[in-house]
């Protein structure tokens, strides 16, 4: 094991993780998820976020259909979609996605189609952004493990 390489990768991982929190992509709930991961369940976090991203894609698609026709918007369906999206983003610590959902719900409550469409676009952007970021994070993890190192515990404070 090349200890220098491992140390560098670990440092990279740590810095990247901290930046994700500082930039508001992740919140404390993500930390809680990581705590639940261990040698017995080494892919737990990756699996949960994967489910989350699948959820996002599906819910966003359904909502876009509901919002498509200006004269015929099913706000009830959109509200339900936002509620689910907010819930699951909250469960995985996807802070930016969750925050868009809060604004999204407000637009839905007043039946503002334009506002909803903007929020829909934003939530789509945010989840895809987070997906890329987390993929980079997981890749770093893999590199550390392949180099024979261990994933550091990152203290976010």
């Amino acid at each position, binding site marked *: 094991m090349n200890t220098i390489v491992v140390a560098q990768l670990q440092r990279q991982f740590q810095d990247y993780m901290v930046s994700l929190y500082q930039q508001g992509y992740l919140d404390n709930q993500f930390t809680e998820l990581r705590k639940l991961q261990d040698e017995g369940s080494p892919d737990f976090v990756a699996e949960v976020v994967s*489910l989350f991203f699948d*959820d996002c894609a599906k819910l966003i698609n359904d909502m876009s259909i509901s919002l498509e026709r200006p004269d015929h918007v099913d706000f009830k369906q959109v509200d339900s979609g936002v509620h689910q999206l907010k819930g699951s983003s909250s*469960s995985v610590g996807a802070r930016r996605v969750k925050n868009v959902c809060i604004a999204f719900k407000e637009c839905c409550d007043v039946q503002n189609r334009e506002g909803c469409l903007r929020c829909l676009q934003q939530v789509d952007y945010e989840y895809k952004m987070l997906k890329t970021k987390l993929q980079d994070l997981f890749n770093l993890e893999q590199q550390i493990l392949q180099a024979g190192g261990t994933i550091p515990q990152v203290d976010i404070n």
Partner: protein
Amino acid sequence: MAEVLLPRKMEMANDPSKFGSPDLLHVLAVDDSHVDRKFIERLLRVSSCKVTVVDSATRALQYLGLDVEVKSVGFEDLKVNLIMTDYSMPGMTGYELLKKIKESSAFREVPVVIMSSENILPRIDRCLEEGAEDFLLKPVKLSDVKRLRDSLMKVEDLSFTKSTQKRELETENVYSFDSPVQSQLKRTKI
């Protein structure tokens, strides 16, 4: 007073089915969100619980054998120590599920915990009034689960101990009519 070892008392100690293993609480978790199901399942496993997860209230009732008018065979042995259900679910809500469970003779004693992402006071009150053991705000914390598990295990131990004590006292009542201790036993209320 003669020492009498009663067969009933021995059965009690050797009969595990009534109280289940004190280390392994069996929790039935109900949530329509795939993400939340995965999450709560992990929380419960990490807390040394046996977990069954279903995606709707209807499926929960099916699992418990409460979905049919006539009681099915084979559910008498089903031991569920705790039911944790999401509040907002399509079809039947967690609140409606709570009511159905409390209406059933088989499962009304099983504690039911409601989980919700929304902190709505009237909702919480309604659930507690209907007999919910607790109301947890999502995302549920590991500490919430640990707290629940600990309090449930105390209850199980306590009721086991109380039952054993009660049987001992009943026994003594039967076998020692003129014992000076008898009046003392009568005062003791279990």
